[in-house]
């Protein structure tokens, strides 16, 4: 396995200056007896129960399972978006739910790239501006480096020349590529994708996963993605299958 930032094959996903700003080394994730319930009393609904697993650094992991099985909740917990009702979550040995709110935000900003199911682009910004948006809050990235990084990552996801277009001027596949570019621009240690291909056709979905795979290979980014598409599951190094909030099977 190459070191962080070392090229494997002919394609660099990000230009050189990114290396200096990467917040953390490839991340190992560990969940221990994590559960999540909603409501209280008789109305309590368990969405996730007693999930324990470890994702090694640089892994490319699919979270599989039918709708309502807890995939999104699990990814949200790993990403620091939803506090588990029980259990603990460590990223590189640090319990992220012991962090204060501001520290958790900073952790997400610097360490997590999130690809949402529903695009989540800001409609009044162009593709390039959307990609640049989270980088604005990282003071260590100078304006010039930010611009070159945005252009490079848009080029990489195949949107070179379309950086000035607003989301409504792009196709669904292109929008999802912008979302991916935005997640990659910060050079995160962990990339989390929640059904990233749900809004895309077959080819578009596979292309997105392949892009993630390239990133994983080149940058050592730990990738977790939720899907119920068997072809996309097959592209993963390992798979965690959920059913009714319980971990049903781990496939290495």
């Amino acid at each position, binding site marked *: 396995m190459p070191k962080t930032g070392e090229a494997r094959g002919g394609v660099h996903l990000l230009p050189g200056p990114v290396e200096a700003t990467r917040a953390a080394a490839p991340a190992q994730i560990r969940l221990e007896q994590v559960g999540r319930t909603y409501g209280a009393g008789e109305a309590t609904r368990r969405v996730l129960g007693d999930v324990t697993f470890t994702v090694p650094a640089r892994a490319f992991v699919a979270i599989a399972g039918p709708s309502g099985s807890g995939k999104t909740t699990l990814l949200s917990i790993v990403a620091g978006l939803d506090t588990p009702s029980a259990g603990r979550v460590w990223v590189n040995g640090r319990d992220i739910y012991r962090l204060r709110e501001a520290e958790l*935000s900073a952790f997400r*900003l610097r360490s997590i790239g*999130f690809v*949402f199911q529903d695009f*989540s682009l800001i409609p*009044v910004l162009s593709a390039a501006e959307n990609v*640049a948006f*989270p980088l604005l*809050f990282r003071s260590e990235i100078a304006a010039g480096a930010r611009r070159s990084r945005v252009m490079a990552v848009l080029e990489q996801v195949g949107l070179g020349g379309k950086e000035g277009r607003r989301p409504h001027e792009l196709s669904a596949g292109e929008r999802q590529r912008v979302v991916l570019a935005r997640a990659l621009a910060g050079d995160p240690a962990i990339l989390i994708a929640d059904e990233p291909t749900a809004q895309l056709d077959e080819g578009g979905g596979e292309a997105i996963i392949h892009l993630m795979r390239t990133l994983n290979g080149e940058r050592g980014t730990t990738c977790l993605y939720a899907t119920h598409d068997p072809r996309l599951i097959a592209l993963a190094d390992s798979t965690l299958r959920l059913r009714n909030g319980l971990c049903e099977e781990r496939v290495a």
Partner: protein
Amino acid sequence: MSLLLRLALRNVFRNYLRSVVTLFVIGAGCAALIVNAGVVFNIFRELREDAIWGRYAHLQVYRRGYSQGHRAEPERYLIPPAEARRLIALARADPRIAHATRRREFSGMVSVGSRYTAFLGVGVEPEMDGEFSRHTELRLGQPLTVGDAYGVLAGMGLAQKMGADTGAELRLITTTGTGAFNAVHARLLGVFEGGFKDYDDWTLKAPLGAVEQLLMDDRTEQVVLLLRRTDDAPAVRASLERAFAQEGLDLEIRSWDQLALFHNQVVSLFGRELDVLRLIVCVIVILGIANAVSMSIVDRQFELAATRAMGVGARPLAGLLMTEALLTGLIGAALGVAAGVGIAWAVSQVGIAYPSPPGSTRPFRGGVDLVPHEILTAFSLSVAATVLAAVPPAWRAVRLRIAPALRRG
């Protein structure tokens, strides 16, 4: 322009209809404040001009202690002729002072035939009276003239009480400083309307020479000063006080705003009304904007949750939302200022017909004054109300629970 500012600006105009309504609410509130203040200040100005140019002038100079004691001991507070000449010379040396004249107030009875009527007299220098009475309208006859040493003017109400027409022969009767009765024959030259009923019902203006003859006293009660600019009154007063002290003149000065009690009461009353209106407009703007901002945040809940998920902290996100509110306020208030100025100009072209105010004898036509500090106040209040209104929804937005909001999206 930074991306964050660009984003805030674009978000302001994101929902066209809502933006229009929001900007309309802010703009209308701001314009209402400007126009209302303009109307009120126009009334203030009219009253001020009436007070200055009709009765009191800008400054009045008396012997020290006059204000407190002249009613009890009028003879004690009179200025000898030589001293009056010195103080007028000092006043005329100041280029900010346009005119200076002597006056003597007295009271007595006027008879027309066998009919006797009480009056309050003012002895004036005829050649100066026109300048000092610009807001006094001559309804009948002619003004005082230097050539007619015994020609007098009466207020409309007094003329009616006397039952005298212009040209009527009058006899002015009063008591002198020594307590003796004295009288002079005079002729009614004209009838004036000063605009204040009490003033018009009692006032008789006579040439100062005739009054000095009647009172058998050539001392001056007051020297009144007209300035080129009303705003100079405090400064001129201060420099005259210094000059009087240097010259050893024991005099006191009162300015028009100390004397014009009716003007002061109206300013106080309408000033409160302005404050109440400001409060009402602020409440309307705050409620309108809070609703608009809340709607905007509800619409963008998924987007805001995604922004938080990307790691944008609560503080920067609140900053973004408040920047949007600030821009909305600035744009809305700027439109409001433009609208307010436009309305003020248009209304002033047409004019507003007012009935006679309480205590006044004549209606007047007013307009809408553009008062710079009131425009600035309206602008600032509108922006502040908008920003204030955005605080609670912005606070709720940054405390949004991210995962549920993303699921709802």
